[in-house]
């Protein structure tokens, strides 16, 4: 078996991509560059990327940018309204909200990205197994998935978060697991559409191992439609993480996570609305920017919209 797969790598891989380009249309082959170019031409995508990147940079370089510490208490500035000194005001302990939001990006953005990574890995693995093998394996996996999807995803995330307990790693895991079923479905559907194309059969006929066919030939060619759901998943995860923090699961208040800040500030909304206004606003801006990017990505990948 081992020698077979080595042969397969040496002799046939130069052939397979050529066949692939001839047989499948533009959507599958050489799509990477094309999609990227279309993407850069879209204003929405560009705006989205710029906002997301700048929020990430703010989070990374927060200590250099902000003159304040995100933990230091300041009795003089308790509930200070927005001013030139504290652009977004201060919270109930006199901590600068803008600084905390910058540090909070470290939690919120990485929860969004890491949990999507978990969903993506799990989703691609299970989806490609179901799509490639078909038959009984597919049937069993899909029935199990039906069970997982019989719970609304936020309810599922709440349940897992309850079992795992609060904290950063646990939140990532809870949101990651609850995002798997959606990606499995997209992945499977995408694989089913390329499963019958000749290059897969060619790989089978030269005796490639199943895992090699899946990882070398099927996943790279089926991944493009899944990119959109992966990208959507990030923004959903950020919103859901905030929701989890709000009801007391997820990240706990002393940490400057955006949702946790929002939930800590809700007791003071009557007199000091800036405590909840700005954390919510930053969540919205991040998610909006990411959605702009996802929309542009979807349009770039959708062959129907190409003219």
């Amino acid at each position, binding site marked *: 078996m081992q020698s077979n797969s080595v042969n397969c790598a040496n002799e046939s891989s130069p052939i397979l991509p050529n066949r692939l380009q001839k047989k499948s249309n533009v959507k599958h082959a050489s799509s990477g560059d094309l999609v990227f170019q279309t993407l850069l031409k879209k204003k929405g995508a560009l705006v989205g990327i710029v906002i997301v990147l700048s929020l990430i940079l703010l989070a990374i370089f927060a200590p250099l940018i902000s003159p304040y510490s995100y933990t230091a208490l300041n009795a003089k500035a308790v509930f200070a309204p927005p001013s030139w000194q504290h652009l977004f005001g201060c919270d109930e302990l006199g901590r600068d909200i803008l600084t905390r939001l910058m540090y909070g990006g470290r939690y919120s953005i990485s929860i969004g990205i890491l949990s999507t990574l978990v969903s993506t890995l799990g989703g691609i693995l299970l989806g490609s197994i179901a799509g490639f093998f078909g038959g009984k394996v597919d049937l069993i996996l899909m029935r199990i998935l039906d069970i997982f999807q019989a*719970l609304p995803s*936020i309810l599922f995330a709440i*349940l897992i978060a309850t079992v795992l307990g609060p904290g950063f790693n646990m939140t990532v895991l809870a949101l990651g697991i609850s995002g798997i079923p959606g990606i499995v479905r997209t992945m499977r559907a995408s694989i089913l559409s390329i499963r019958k194309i000749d290059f897969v059969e060619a790989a089978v006929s030269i005796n490639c191992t199943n895992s090699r066919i899946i990882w070398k030939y099927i996943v790279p060619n089926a991944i493009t439609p899944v990119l959109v759901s992966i990208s959507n998943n990030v923004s959903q995860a950020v919103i859901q993480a905030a929701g989890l923090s709000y009801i007391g699961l997820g990240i706990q208040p002393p940490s400057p996570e955006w949702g946790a800040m929002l939930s800590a500030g809700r007791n003071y909304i009557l007199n000091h609305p800036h405590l909840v206004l700005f954390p*919510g606003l930053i969540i919205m801006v991040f998610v909006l920017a990411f959605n702009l990017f996802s929309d542009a990505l979807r349009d770039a990948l959708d062959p129907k919209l190409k003219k």
Partner: protein
Amino acid sequence: MIPVILGVTILIFTLMFFIPGDLAGIVLGPTATEAQKQAYRLANGLNDPYIIQLGRYLSNVFFHLNFGTSYIQGTSVLSDLLERFPRTITIAAGTVVVGFGIGIPIGILAAVKQDKLFDRIALAVSLIGISMPAFWLAILLVLLFSVQLNWLPSQGIGGVQYYILPCLANAAAGIAGNIRLTRSCMLEVIRTDYVTTARAKGISETKVLIRHALPNVMINIVTAMGMLFGAMLGGTIIIENVYSIPGIGAYMVKSINSRDYTAVEGSVVFLAIVFGFVMLVVDLVYAWIDPRIKAQYSEFRRSKANAK
């Protein structure tokens, strides 16, 4: 549907089974002696193997409609849930009505006026709508309508006016999602040949839209309806906490925080069953709207009969 609900119940029980911590310790408090804890475990069958506990839970839930007793309150979980259910379902149903009632017409109009000002505004608003955390919008609505304008109550339950803000806040994402979905489906449909044919016959544009285009768009919308309902039911859990509405969501969150796990388990199973029923209804509506599905089923049955 029944196997799915059974499966969900098993899944939930299995997940809850792995919660770390000693149940007897939680219930009896820190002062309990080891012998008392042991007696509690024996009395409640907590020392039994997983599979026996699972079987007992399933038979309790499905044969005796018994979701157990809350550790903290000592009340029956089912009666707690049934008492709160009308409020939760009111919000969920209101959300669905608002979400589809506002979202679909705007989506159609946006598609008809593609690239005009209305379309651009609708798209921008819907993009913002899906990007907002619902509970944040809920807080903002309270600030505007309850604190500033003093039109609507900010929390609690009572008459219809108490449900307006929760439904609106919960529906925002649904409205936005519906606008986007309806618009993109509509754009696809109004470019098809049968719509061109209908126009060529000289039918008025409104009639073309309502009689020829809309039914085909509805098929896609109903497909999305199930998922949206799930999202709205899930959203209700968080929204109830913002508005202090004593529904199942608030009950569940309170139970999670007091580590009342039978109540948590009961709430999730209960919501899963409700969701299962809704999905069943959606499937039925789907078959009723789309004649092709019915045809497919009868064909499927025929081919099965032939195979035998």
